[in-house]
């Protein structure tokens, strides 16, 4: 147990934990919403996120990211990338709903089968990305213009450097930089926006109604298919935001990057109380920080073990997660 290290770099560990935790939280939102409405684990959500990271990387490459220097240009580029990631992730999320869930929900298939179909979809999406050069070859599309996007499709794709993070201020002995602030603030802002949207808007009420009781909701004139679609779409858009933040922070992606992050994000969702939007935020942040602290105490190679052990412990003492579950029962 290395308490010295934990106390010496307490702020560094805490803040980087919060940064990673915010990304977990945004991805967790997609799991928690789909679970809240359908009571199904959307296994393919990690792939929704992964497509977002690629959308960010490609947009920046397409805009010629490497050469820009100005902060304004960098911010503009990131905003374009953000929009691209939101569109791509949202579209992939809708595709998942259409292909892997709707046919099964119509047939009232058992839960486990929906999980299998989502796992299948997850494989298809990840492999389609990992085989993109071969797929383009098979369709006879090649040429210099497409090479930067598909070359070495099974390796890491690095995010082009666009601007160095700016050192902002010190907390303890850790210098907070602009990336840390951007990630944490935008994650929290997005979570608040979604939370308010679900609580206050008409469609948000529809989603909550479907989560509580799909049949009564249908009788009251809520289009449940549309509500489910919207749930996937919001989850996808948030995964797109997460993808941008991830690419700013980690700066590299790969076709199978979604898997571990997806597991972590789902853990975060369960930790906070699945189906609970605020729980996703709390769970994500707690998980990120706990991982860092625990890693500092007993070695960073045990980080993943720590997060799972934490999950088991919390579920034992509070089986519905930290904030309790249910999207439907949230007060309006």
């Amino acid at each position: 147990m290395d308490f010295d290290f934990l106390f010496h770099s307490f702020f560094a560990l805490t803040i980087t934990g919060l940064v990673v935790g915010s990304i977990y939280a945004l991805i967790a939102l997609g799991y928690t919403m789909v679970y809240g409405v359908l009571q199904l684990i959307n296994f393919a959500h990690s792939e929704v996120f992964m497509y977002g990271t690629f959308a960010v990387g490609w947009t920046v490459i397409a805009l010629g990211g490497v050469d820009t220097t100005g902060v304004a240009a960098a911010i503009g580029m990131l905003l374009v990338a953000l929009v691209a990631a939101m569109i791509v992730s949202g579209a992939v999320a809708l595709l998942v709903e259409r292909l892997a869930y709707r046919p099964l929900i119509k047939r009232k298939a058992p839960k486990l089968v929906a999980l299998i179909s989502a796992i299948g979809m997850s494989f298809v999406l990840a492999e389609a990305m990992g085989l993109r050069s071969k797929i383009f070859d098979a369709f006879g599309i090649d040429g210099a213009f497409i090479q930067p996007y598909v070359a070495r499709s099974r390796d890491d794709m690095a995010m082009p450097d666009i601007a160095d993070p700016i050192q902002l201020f010190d907390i303890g002995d850790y210098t907070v930089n602009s990336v840390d602030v951007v990630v944490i603030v935008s994650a929290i802002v997005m979570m608040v926006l979604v939370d308010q949207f679900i609580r206050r808007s008409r469609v948000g009420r529809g989603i909550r109604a479907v989560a509580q009781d799909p049949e009564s909701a249908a009788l009251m004139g809520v289009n449940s298919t549309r509500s489910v679609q919207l749930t996937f779409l919001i989850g996808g858009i948030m995964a797109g935001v997460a993808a941008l933040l991830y690419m700013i922070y980690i700066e590299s992606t790969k076709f199978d990057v979604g898997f571990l992050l997806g597991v972590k994000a789902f853990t975060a969702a369960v930790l906070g109380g699945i189906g609970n939007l605020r729980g996703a935020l709390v769970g994500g942040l707690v998980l990120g920080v706990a991982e860092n602290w625990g890693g500092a105490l007993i070695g960073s190679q045990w980080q993943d073990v720590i997060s799972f052990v934490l999950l088991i412990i919390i579920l034992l003492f509070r089986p519905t997660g930290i904030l309790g579950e249910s999207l439907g029962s949230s007060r309006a």
Partner: protein
Amino acid sequence: MSTPVKSTKPAARKRSFRELVDGLPKFVKVLLVLLLIVFLYALPIIEPPFISTPDVDFGGTLFTVATYCLVALGLNIVIGYAGLLDLGYVGFYAVGAYTVAVVTAAHGSWPFLLAVPLAVVAAMISGVILGAPTLRVRGDYLAIVTLGFGEIIRLIAVNNNWLGGSRGINEIARPQSIELFEVPHIDWSTGQPLLDLDNTTVFLKFGILDLIPYYWMALTAVLIVIWADRRIKDSRVGRAWEATREDEDAAELMGVPTFKFKLLAFALGAFVGGLSGALFASKQAFINPTSFLLLLSILFVAAVVVGGQGNRYGVLLGAALVAYLPERFRGFEDWRVLVFGIVLMVLATFRPQGLIPPRRTVRAKQAEAEIAVLEGEAPKDEA
């Protein structure tokens, strides 16, 4: 609303395979089963064209199929009978494999046959250790907790030098060879089956090159487990599982100690998983943590669900497909995960109850359809 009632006549439906078999006299049934078993043992010797794998060793492929079958039988107890979703089953498989590796190679030199019981017991204990705290949490959470358990086992193996770290453990003991006689293979290269006396398998020589004896060993284990599975499914325990799966509260009210039976299912599932892992370690002679990725757990669950959870022959078919198809189509190696994903989706959509669903499910469906007809509704398409 008076929609014309479609007439579905249950009496006129085609006789199922099951009824056909049930109608046969007993000695014919026994004979058929024996023939099937003999055929299964002889399969790697016959090497039938089209079925045998052109790019990889056929005996090795069959061994893989047999271990997957074993795993599927064990996981079927957990998922199919007791209704507990276990996404970390590879953890038990790894415990079995590592136990054998540790006591026969890394920190001891036990013979393989002594190591197997230890491996199985170790896997069972790990099942109880995982199950005792977690089986009280709700079903969906169990999935993620077990997923975490599978990862924890793998990460412990990666980070622990006593377990060989990420390099793994090699020179794991093989089973004791008893060389009795040689079995010639059959050669199909001319289009006619010919005995090939140059290409033989020594009966029970557990070497490096010829993997067929390992297949025989694994097949024997599969047959024993099928037999035990039949006994236990039809016993009080099997009925208790079924009751727990269908309605836990009702089962508890009827006096079924549901927690105990869930734990038993977990332990028995772990038992079979550990056995499978032990056989795998011995055939491989070398294991490292990458042999036990989370993906494997997901493949195992896929095998059970695709085959038909709750039906032991269904899950055997599912396991055989999941293990065999990727080996048969090695030529498309790059594409196989993609194709596998598509197959999973298509099967889940068009045959959600699995390839061979349990008889109970089929009967329940029929009853539902009949009730729907009686109530004057148009029968729903398969729900």
